[in-house]
């Protein structure tokens, strides 16, 4: 078959995978059966994946701009220019790697688990052609950000530095970073699908594997978050620590610093430190060989997807000792089910961890000497806002099984109560992190903890408010809202009332504080308690 034909077929496959990613977020069997609705869904799926690609590209582009600031605008730094630029390029490569991997992980699991290969294999296509179609489809998932980074960055870099060699070095660096990102994406997706989602029996070993996988999975999320937030500091710290002889040589061997040095020295040949450059070139050659191996791995994995019709692993008969189960109260049964499902889905699990990691990052950015109320409010606001993203997510966990769940004798109250409790436990975990960090740095965070504990009432109220909105919508329309990464707009609209509910006591406390009144804590407590009580009454009448 001609390449153009295969390219056309890969577009159909790509559209189907995009559709499946959104279809999985709908209520499966109770999906509206009207032709018009399905067409609308197909269009939504295509727009969603396009938006996801464009947003990733914008992020990459915006961050890339920060690399050029010292070059283009001659920003003065205490460290030498070539080291600042090396740090900037390094940070850019890290962001690129994390963002591509992050974006890829949202869709690649559905790509790996897609049954589309079953359909293709029934057509008169060779295995090689099927593999090629799958590969082209895989590239289509990433095309815009990959091409944009690979083309635009080297051209702009070459233009600002006035060196074609610098442009070429950045081109190679970006190409290799992209290969690493794709290898990380597909490796994790295949591992997730074969060993975790469809893998053998549940055991302590598989639980451990799942935990390790989730830790590895969340690295791109928080890596991107960390590098983007602290880019300037990272670049400056990098530039200052690499001014000592031994450090700079060691750092030149580490990825992606090696490429940072290569790109920087290519731009400023008069500033070359030849021994560092030699170290950097040797490391870059090593990483290039590794990238070639990764590329081979990507092609091999995709070929495997194309060849292994019907999924990666099939179930096998296993020796099972008994059929004993331990039923609990309905609300606890719901919580256990939600946690189990979330722990097996990287995108869900990362949102559970987000408040705690957010707390840890915020704590380290705090002035440790004295804690002002505005710092406390800022911190609680950050953690609360991340926490109240959870309730809609906890409902979207029902996913395709929503139709089945609705057939069970489970009332709205129980569902809201169970999911609010999970939200509060997640929030409380952030306070535990805060307490632990306070112990470690031997600082008195008692005031933050006091406010934090009282704030849990406002968080619970916000959670109940969001859930009651969502559940009403769910009961009435039968549609699940889906994954936060793919349906950001919908989420934001419904989460806003929750945000407002969390904001009210915090704003009131800040206002009272600036007015110089000693009643900050009582007023904060009263408003949070009132919100909680009001929502509790509403929910009890559901």
């Amino acid at each position: 078959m001609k390449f153009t034909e295969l390219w056309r077929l890969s577009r159909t496959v790509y559209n189907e995978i995009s559709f499946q990613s959104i279809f999985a977020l709908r209520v499966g069997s109770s999906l509206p059966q009207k032709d018009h609705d399905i067409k609308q869904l197909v269009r939504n799926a295509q727009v969603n994946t396009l938006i996801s690609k464009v947003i990733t590209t914008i992020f990459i582009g915006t961050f890339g701009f920060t690399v050029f600031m010292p070059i283009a605008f001659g920003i003065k730094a205490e460290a030498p220019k070539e080291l600042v630029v090396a740090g900037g390029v390094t940070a850019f490569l890290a962001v690129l790697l994390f963002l591509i991997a992050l974006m890829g992980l949202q869709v690649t699991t559905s790509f790996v688990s897609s049954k589309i290969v079953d359909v293709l294999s029934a057509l008169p296509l060779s295995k090689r052609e099927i593999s090629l179609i799958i590969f082209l489809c895989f590239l289509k998932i990433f095309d815009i950000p990959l091409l944009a980074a690979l083309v635009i960055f080297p051209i702009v870099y070459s233009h600002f530095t006035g060196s074609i060699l610098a442009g070429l070095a950045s081109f190679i660096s970006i190409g290799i970073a992209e290969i690493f990102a794709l290898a990380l994406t597909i490796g994790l997706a295949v591992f997730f699908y074969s060993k975790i989602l469809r893998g053998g029996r549940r055991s302590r070993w598989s639980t451990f594997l799942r935990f390790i996988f989730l830790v590895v999975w969340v690295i791109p999320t928080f890596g991107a978050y960390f590098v983007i937030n602290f880019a300037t500091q990272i670049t400056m710290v990098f530039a200052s620590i690499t001014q000592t002889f031994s450090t700079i040589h060691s750092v030149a061997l580490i990825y992606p610093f090696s490429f940072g040095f290569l790109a920087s020295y290519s731009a400023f040949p008069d500033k070359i430190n030849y021994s560092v450059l030699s170290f950097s070139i040797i490391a870059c050659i090593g990483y290039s060989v590794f990238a070639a191996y990764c590329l081979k791995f990507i092609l091999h994995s995709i070929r495997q997807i194309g060849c292994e019709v019907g999924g990666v692993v099939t179930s096998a008969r296993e020796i099972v000792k008994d059929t004993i189960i331990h039923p609990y109260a309905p609300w606890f049964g719901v919580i256990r089910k939600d946690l189990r499902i979330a722990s097996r889905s990287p995108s869900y699990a990362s949102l559970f961890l987000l408040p705690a990691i957010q707390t840890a990052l915020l704590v380290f950015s705090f002035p440790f000497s004295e804690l002002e109320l505005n710092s406390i409010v800022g911190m609680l606001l950050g953690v609360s806002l991340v926490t109240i993203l959870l309730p809609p997510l906890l409902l979207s966990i029902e996913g395709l099984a929503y139709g089945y769940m609705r057939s069970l004798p489970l009332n709205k109250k129980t569902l809201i109560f169970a999911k609010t409790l999970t939200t509060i436990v997640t929030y409380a975990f952030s306070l535990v992190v805060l307490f632990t960090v306070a112990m470690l740095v031997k600082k008195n965070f008692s005031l933050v903890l006091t406010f934090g504990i009282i704030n849990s009432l406002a968080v619970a109220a916000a959670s109940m408010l969001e859930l009651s909105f969502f559940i009403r919508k769910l009961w009435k329309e039968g549609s699940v809202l889906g994954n936060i990464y793919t349906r950001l707009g919908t989420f934001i609209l419904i989460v806003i009332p929750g945000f407002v509910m969390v904001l009210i006591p915090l704003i009131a406390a800040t206002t009272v504080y600036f007015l110089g009144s000693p009643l900050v804590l009582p007023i904060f407590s009263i408003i949070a308690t009132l919100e909680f009580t009001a929502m509790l009454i509403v929910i009890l009448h559901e």
Partner: protein
Amino acid sequence: MEQAAVIVEGLTVAYGRFVAVDDLSFIVKPGEIYGLLGPNGAGKTSTIKALIGVLQPRSGRVQIYNMPLLDEFVVKSQIGYVPEEVVLFDSLTPREFFEFIASVRRLKADIVNSRLERLAYVFDVKQYFDTPIAALSRGNKQKVAIAAALLHEPKLLILDEPLIGLDARASKILKELITFHAKKGGAVIFSTHIMEIAEKLCTRVGIINKGRLVGEGTVEDLQRLVKSTEGSLEDIFLKVTQQEMDMREIVKALEEE
């Protein structure tokens, strides 16, 4: 007067402007196995979803053991449901899934465990108890769904195409279970495309076409309706759904080819 297990009156289900079920009425009595028959897209699944509360009807009345569907909690406690498209929680194992169902249905551990042991043996699913549902074949998923529907020993079984994907053994067992359930006084509503099964198993059948009930009764009643004493349920079905003439033309066209 005997209490009806299910009363459906003037049920209308619509997706936007498309009416899937149009003014449907039927009654199922305790001890009855009521078959819902109809061509693809006739409205069988929409009817069943409205009966279990997954879909909100546009109009009409549904009562389960004299209770309106609004009394969701009590009504759903009496129903065991097997969906047409077996979509359970894929990342859970059957053990975890049964645990969730038993928790939601407030079943006592000692009672549910003895039932579960029996059901696992009957449907031969014990060896898959700790395997993720995603990794099970369609038939095994179906068995898990059936076992989950029977876990609380419901008075009313609502089964949407329950035999699809089942092996011969499981299929035979399910048919026996359905018959036994009805003999004990329970009621069963089940939809199927397989006419022979409906003919052998059902006490009464209702034939739906384009959302409307076009025929109802025992096979003998329906034979009388179409004025034929020899026709099988398949022939009756084709006749009342006005597909008989089409079918003759199709067969003729195929023969000519």
